[in-house]
């Protein structure tokens, strides 16, 4: 056994374990990531590209032996930054009329329920549009199942600031929706 052969074996074994970890994270986070990106305003196939790129970055990150704590927050940060670079899509969601947006989803509901759902979502969308960017992003990341410290990692904010922002955003929605 020479030192050279050990040096070759090490990266290969690391690649194998990284692939397993990436697969497991992919299984867990692909859908929440896609949902977050589409809710931000990206088109579905655009969001899929961003998710793919984020996981490829994760591959490189792990293979380079970089820190692995708060990896969920890290992954969302990579995806979030890529979404922000697509300005056209990023600002689309809350800038266009929503009347036709929910028609496909509501096809199977009764007409009465359809009207109520549409009205509810319309008011919510207006209330979300009135939030600041960071309030909206914190809320959507929370809806994706992230903890406050993970949201902080994704948006480069202190955990306590995330808590304050989430609370402020939900209070605003509550006032606007009069729930």
């Amino acid at each position, binding site marked *: 056994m020479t030192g050279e052969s050990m040096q070759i074996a090490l990266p290969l074994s690391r690649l194998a374990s990284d692939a397993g970890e990436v697969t497991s994270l992919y299984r867990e986070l692909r859908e929440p990531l896609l949902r977050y990106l589409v*809710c931000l305003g990206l088109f579905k196939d655009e969001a899929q590209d961003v998710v793919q790129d984020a996981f*490829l970055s994760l591959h490189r990150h792990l293979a380079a032996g970089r820190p692995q704590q708060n990896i969920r927050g890290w992954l969302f940060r990579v995806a979030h930054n890529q979404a922000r670079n697509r300005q056209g899509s990023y600002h689309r969601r809350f800038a266009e009329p929503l009347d036709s947006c*929910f028609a496909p989803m509501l096809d199977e509901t009764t007409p009465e329920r359809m009207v109520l759902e549409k009205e509810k979502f319309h008011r919510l969308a207006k209330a979300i549009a009135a939030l600041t960017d960071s309030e909206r992003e914190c809320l959507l990341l929370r809806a994706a199942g992230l903890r406050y410290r993970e949201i902080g990692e994704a948006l480069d904010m202190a955990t306590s600031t995330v*808590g304050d922002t*989430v609370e402020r955003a939900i209070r605003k929605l509550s006032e606007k929706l009069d729930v």
Partner: protein
Amino acid sequence: MCKYSTKLIAWIDRELEPEPMAEMEQHLGDCGECRLNIAKYEGISKILDDYCNAVVNAEPDWDQRRWIPILSAAAAILVLVATVTVVLRTVVQPPLPPSPTASVQPTQFPIVAEAPSPAADAIRPRRATPKLARTQAGKWLPLPPKTAVEVAIPADSMFPPGAVPEGINFIADVSFAPDGSTRQMRLRPRLTAIERSVSQP
């Protein structure tokens, strides 16, 4: 206003330290106002969750893209070779003499689409990320995508084992000029094998 009212959402999210968490639970037993606000905030979270699902469901799949099976580069090349062969035959083969029976159609040029091959799935039109244009009515609509072809290439057909992490393959975006010549080819690494393993039960 109750002094605990600013900690209600952190309590719902289980983000309080153990001691304030227990204190809040004790307080909620006594304070009807806070219990009411908790129900209100949980309702908001539920509506927001439904809204996010509705947005994703309502968003059109621009190209109904599904990750295609990993096919060998050799199979893709085979299709190209077959296509070239057909084209060459159409060029060099002299036309058949007129048939005595006018109702019979000449069939000297085989059509690729009539010979299904698994390799045919390796090439498919790709819809690029739609660009937006604003209409006169002020609505944002996608512009038609550029015509392109996407070919899946397994990493191990190009790189030695271990050089590329397991689960990664490549998609080649090929675009053509109007005269049929190749204008551009771009290789993009993609997690096709991981995607496939996750989508299988």
